[in-house]
């Protein structure tokens, strides 16, 4: 046996396959239980798109029967996935021969390979965003529902707004002062709330003892809320923050910004007015989508949705496109490498929400499914035929 084969031998073993499958099953199970306490995207990042995950043993306790303040390290999705891939490739390199008897297994394993690579491509390259458009209006950006940004807008130019944004990771660092030459003031984050609830302020200081001196926040209070979990109706965290703005060492005041507050709040700096607000991170597109008509049918006598559809007009000056498209359930629009799905609607049916996805690997599972199904049919089918022939004999 040549040395390369000897080295591949342990990697190709079926025992390794079984052990890896068992570990993967545990990982998937743990990653499901974790969603009772954590948001689905946090779990996907920590469990399935990581090399090592610290699994909190508390997740395995039924209800609140006991406290187990312990977590154990465990191989994450990337580790197990790549080991399974290596195992599969090694097995084919040294054990399987290209024969007719093995045709089924070869096909099905090729499909598994494609499936794992497809999920890897998605993990690395897929991007999702939302585009919400009111009827009669248009949008030229998507919003990333998993991250927010602080927008500082200079509305003085009648043609367009000048916008400077502060991304979420900078806001999350408590008590740091954010300064930038394009910002008209420095921003100190007094308190960052990853998820929050907003209520009318009855009296006394705002949440956490901060005194809001300007904007809508003077009448409101924000309190931190636990992060949304994978098993709740609410699916998006709604951050809020208390910010103290200052210019040249002089404090301008303390504002409350929140995803719940969608009206811009004014900040006056040396006679010039800026608008500030917390909003979902935006990505601008070279085209616009106009919503002509949104339809939301319900079953008679119920609130159960029967169908949603959005009649849109796609305008792309770069590519000279200007056409109408009807987007509805299970019938998305595919355009410029992105796919637009009917996802939700705005309260009162005044507008539509489209999910916009860019995933270069989106076709891979389709091929994978065909290969694996075909492979299993060939393999098990021939086994069954042999068995029945023997049983009859």
């Amino acid at each position, binding site marked *: 046996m040549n040395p390369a084969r000897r080295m591949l031998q342990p990697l190709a*073993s*079926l*025992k390794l*396959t*079984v052990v890896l*499958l*068992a570990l*993967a*099953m545990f990982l*998937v*199970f743990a*990653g*499901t239980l974790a*969603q*009772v306490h954590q948001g*689905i995207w946090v779990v*996907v990042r920590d*469990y*399935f798109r990581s090399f090592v995950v610290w699994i909190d043993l508390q997740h395995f306790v*039924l*209800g*609140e*029967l006991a406290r187990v303040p312990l977590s154990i390290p465990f191989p994450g999705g990337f580790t197990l996935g790549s080991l399974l891939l290596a195992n599969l490739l090694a097995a084919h390199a040294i054990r399987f021969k290209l024969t007719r008897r093995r045709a089924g297994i070869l096909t099905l394993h090729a499909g598994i390979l494609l*499936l794992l690579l*497809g*999920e890897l491509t*998605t993990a690395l390259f897929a991007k*999702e965003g939302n585009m919400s458009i009111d009827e009669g209006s248009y949008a030229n950006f998507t919003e990333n529902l998993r991250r927010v940004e602080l927008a500082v807008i200079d509305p003085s130019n009648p043609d367009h707004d000048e916008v400077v944004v502060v991304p979420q990771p900078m806001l999350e660092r408590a008590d740091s002062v954010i300064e930038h030459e394009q910002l008209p003031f420095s921003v100190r984050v007094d308190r960052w709330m990853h998820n929050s609830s907003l209520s009318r302020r009855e009296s006394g200081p705002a949440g956490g003892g901060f005194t809001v001196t300007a904007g809508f926040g003077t009448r409101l209070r924000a309190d931190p809320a636990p992060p949304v*979990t*994978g*098993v*709740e109706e609410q699916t998006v965290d709604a951050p809020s923050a208390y910010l103290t703005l200052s210019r040249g060492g002089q404090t301008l005041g303390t504002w409350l910004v929140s995803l719940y507050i969608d009206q811009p709040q004014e900040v006056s700096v040396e006679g010039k007015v800026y608008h500030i607000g917390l909003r979902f991170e935006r990505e601008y597109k070279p085209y616009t989508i106009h919503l002509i008509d949104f339809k939301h049918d319900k*079953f*008679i*006598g*119920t609130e*159960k*949705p*029967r*169908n*949603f559809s959005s009649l849109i007009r796609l305008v792309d000056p770069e590519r000279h496109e200007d056409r109408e498209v009807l987007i509805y*359930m*299970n019938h*998305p629009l595919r355009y410029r490498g992105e*796919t637009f*799905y009917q996802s939700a609607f705005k309260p009162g049916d005044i507008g539509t929400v489209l*999910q916009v*996805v860019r*995933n270069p690997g*989106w076709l891979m*599972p389709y091929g*994978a*499914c065909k290969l*694996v*199904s075909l492979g*299993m049919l060939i393999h*098990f089918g021939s*086994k069954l035929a042999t*068995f*029945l022939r023997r049983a009859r004999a």
Partner: protein
Amino acid sequence: MNESRRQIVWLVVFMAAVSLGISPARAAANQTEDLQAFGRLPVSAEGRVKPFDTVARTSLMILSGRQTFSAGQENRQPAVRWLLDVIARPKEANAYKVFRVDHSGVLALIGRTNEDGKRFSFDEIWPYQAVISEQARLASQVKPKQRNAFQRQLIRLFRNLKLYVKLSAMETPYAVPPLAEGQQWRPFSEVYQEARQGGDPHPAVEPIAMILKAYHDGKPHLFGDSVRRYSRIVAEQLPQETRRAGFEVLFNRFAPFYKATVLYAVGALMACVAFLLRCTQRDGAAAGWSRVLGNAAVWLLGVTFLLHTAGLASRVYLQGRPPVTNLYSSAIFVGWGCVLMALLMERVHRLGIGSVTAGVVGFTTLIVAHNLVGDGDTMEMMQAVLDSNFWLATHVVAVTAGYSATFLAGFLAIAYILLGVFTRLLKPDMSKAIGQMVYGTVCFAALLSFVGTVLGGIWADQSWGRFWGWDPKENGAVLVVMMNVLILHARWGGMIKLRGLMVLAVGGNIVTSWSWFGTNMLGVGLHSYGFMDSALFWLLLFVVSQLAIMGVGAMPIRSWRSFSETDPTRSGRVESGSP
């Protein structure tokens, strides 16, 4: 088989057929022809066109947990009579004890205790309506999954009162059909109001009002005539809906799944006795009887399976959808798939073990289905995103069939372990045959569950651009695939032999029950549910029982009674080698 024994087989099948006929006859005796005709009238409720009979049954079920009721001394009265009384004879109806209240806290609110019974009339509860509304308002501020038993019961009672009031006012169901182009189903209350305010009366108003008036006045002949006259109008305009509604009433009265449950139990019992006789007596009269009984069991189970199939097909016809649309129908379908496969195995191997499994699994899954009926109509409409016959027919059916196959392998494995460890009945040839059955079923399960899971991913990609989202339900499905694949690789790699195959196949039951039910229960607080009556309790009990069986199966082969006196190494190995 000689002639007299053949006759016995036919006798059993004949008796089964007779027993199928009995209950519609008895129900019919309680129901006059005219009441039945009224029950067949189509109405629209929860977005689906269905007969009054179904509305009456599901509403009464929601309120009281039963499909019949007692009117004074008259027991087991049909639901449609109750609904008519609620609408047209409120004085009588308000005295019927149909509101079920169990929780002592809720009972206390209406001035009762557990000793006063379980069901109360509208007249008894309505005086406490203000207290109930106030408490329901408080309880509804708690998230549904976090509510405790008191809060859940209270909200339920509040909703039931609302439903009752709406039914009596004819705000629900939408009883007025579209009799002309461009019309929609509408509630009678609305249409009647319009007519009274001098608008152009809807052509259905007068005939419906006449039916109700005749019923109110206690004029059976006039009632019958009015119902027939109105049925003709509706049938002319809505021939298809009328046909379907009529069929649905037949389906309701025939209750195929209820009958199948009973027959499966009988079949399982017969198959068990036949199997035991066959294993203990190799020849003589007992062996002959075992063959007769075994054949009768197979025939009975076959007939029951046809009944099961007919029920399934009726649901498909009534709903215009593939067989699996919700948890209830998935249980019916899982059972159907298991029974089908088990009976096919019986045909190939003729060991009796296939019939035993078919009967037991058919019975169990239908019992599970019965407990999943929940609130109201089991043929509810689908949310927009789920509204796709193509994907329901492919993805959902494949995944559910995958559950069937995994469960079947698991139950065969349980039979193997119990027979092997606790009896001397597991002979080498039978051991080998069950081994083949389990192995083949696991292969099939791997195929079905994989295809089903990936099709689900493709559906998700078509619907919202995400092939795989790692959400609990998806993870549950992929665990079933991985479990089956793990068993197969362990087997091919020689890590497990027959005994290991059986132990792991029982493990498949745990994974499948988790995927099927467990993932729906995530986030439900222990304190919030009445733990002992919750599905979570049954799931845990099932898991523990399966673990116990796995533990028994993992005992060394020499402690298995079936193998203790023979050569242990021989029985523990698969003869056919690596497949």
